């Protein structure tokens, strides 16, 4: 039925049904789509990323750290938010381990270039998003202890990528082992050959003394 003003009445009916329906309608479970944040948390996509962290193997962060302080990421980082100092041993000789590893996440732009450039599968992107502090500076600079997270954690937040990384590391380790084995075999073979040769020479030397 159409009469002047009927459109308004129809529209009012639509909103009224929606208001009442939002309280009583259970058919559409996802009708109220608002996420009640602190209680309900968003299920993050596996590839979602925020800031980098450092992966370590095993249980001891210091022992299992993969980073070798090669400083490639420090050089590659576009906003230059990474700061690394190489560790030294008792004699003052630099060793392949970071003494200081800082990331200023107030500067970091989450570009993931550090991850792409790391040859040791050591730096990876985290998906934390509740990072805040009472100060603009100190609380937002993450130091090595805060940055170090276990491989298990990495598996927890992004299983596919972590599995691929582990497979790569494993493959590299196997390759290395194979190479080492081959080298060892080569060395052994060479040794054996040398030994054989030495034995032969010895035999040749002793041969004349041997009666035919």
């Amino acid at each position: 039925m159409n009469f002047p003003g009927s459109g308004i009445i129809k529209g009012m009916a639509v909103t009224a049904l929606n208001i009442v329906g939002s309280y009583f309608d259970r058919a559409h479970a996802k009708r109220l789509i608002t996420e009640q944040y602190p209680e309900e948390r968003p299920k993050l996509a596996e590839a979602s990323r925020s800031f980098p962290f450092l992966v370590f193997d095993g249980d001891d962060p210091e022992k299992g750290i993969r980073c070798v302080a090669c400083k490639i990421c420090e050089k590659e980082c576009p906003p230059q938010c990474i700061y690394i100092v190489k560790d030294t041993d008792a004699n003052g000789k630099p060793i392949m381990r970071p003494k200081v590893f800082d990331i200023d996440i107030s500067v970091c732009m989450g570009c993931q270039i550090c991850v792409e450039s790391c040859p040791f599968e050591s730096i990876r992107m985290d998906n934390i998003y509740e990072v805040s502090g009472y100060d603009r500076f100190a609380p937002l600079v993450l130091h090595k202890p805060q940055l170090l997270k276990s491989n298990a954690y990495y598996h927890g937040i992004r299983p596919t990528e972590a599995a691929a990384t582990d497979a790569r590391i494993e493959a590299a380790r196997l390759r290395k082992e194979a190479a080492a084995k081959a080298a060892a075999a080569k060395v052994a073979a060479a040794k054996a050959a040398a030994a054989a040769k030495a034995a032969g020479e010895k035999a040749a030397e002793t041969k004349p003394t041997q009666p035919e």
Partner: protein
Amino acid sequence: MNFFALLKDFLLQFLGLFKNLETLPVECMRLLREFLTKLGELCGITMPQWALDTVSALVLIVAILVTFLVLFALMSVFERKLLARAQNRYGPNRVGPFGLFQPVADGIKMLTKEDLVPRAADKVVHYLAPIVMVAPALMLPVFLPFGRGMVAVDLSVGILAFFALGAGTELAVFMAGWASNNKYSILGAMRAIAQMISYELPLVTSALVVALVAGTLSPTGIAEAQSGYFCGFLPKWFVCTPWGFAACVLFYIGALSESNRCPFDLPEGESEIIAGHLTEYSGFKYAIFFMAEYVGMFAVNGLLVTLFLGGYNAPFPFLEWVPTWCWFFIKLWAVALSMVWVRTTLPRFRIDQMMQFAWKFLLPMSFVTLLAAAAWYYAGQGPKAWMSPAAWSASALIVLLSYLLLGTFCFTRRHSATNRRYLFSE
């Protein structure tokens, strides 16, 4: 008899008052005066009349102010919750149970914000504008009868007084807009004043219709004229008559516009002119503007309830055990929440549409209701019109015919080509 005995005596009397809720507020005032007189006797002086009058007036003022400020606070929550529900959201539900303490949080936020005054502003006028805005708005509820015998100022020209004080709003809006020295502010103020002046005409005319039939300008008299029932149980509210219904709708539209509510929120249309005359106001001054708007809205709604919805009268005889002041506030909330409902539904007018609507439809229509009310009054011989078929048919015919004619002339309806499908509402 010492002070504590007196206090105890009156506290007991006060508790005794709760046996009859209907007369509770009136009896409270009487008891207060009695208490003060006795207290004076205790101190050895006879309490003069003016002192009693002053104290009871102050108590009355505080009671009305607190009531309307609580209404404002609750309205700000319920409005947001209803709006959210219409959009399939939850709305505020964090502060307190069901988010009911949200206004407290809002108040703290508003109070602690910086109070900015533009450098080029006219400082005095900029400062005075919120005061000029809020003072008349807080005065408006005084003229409304909240229940039988419950009116703070019983004027014989109450309705005129209501509109006269409401006129102060325009002045405040102008002051705010001009003093801010900002083009958006002045544009918003011009829009607001144009809108208020245009919509005051149908508003006042439709109130006049009621005054014509009730034969009085006093809100109490009008509410009393709507007491009683016809056909045994149907309420004698003016909204039940053809002319009253039309006038009620006109008054409702006028009230929406006067309180700057959607779809008439052009003065602060945020997508066009930021916040209109409120642009340069922040912190507590902004809160005061906001408060004045909401209290003014409740006051106009209260007038609507008084004029058309039977004031404090119960709708049916079997519901008369509910105190009259409860009925007033129930109706007040119903009208206020219906305004939220309108707000969820209708988009904002364009300024030319708004002006056309006021001058080409509302104003002629309100004159027609005047005619229909006169027809009702004369065909039905005054108060007997409720049972007169001639009165009903004459006024209904006038209203309906002119509505259809005016409606078809004013609104060229355009139909959308496709049938819309709604996800949840069908």
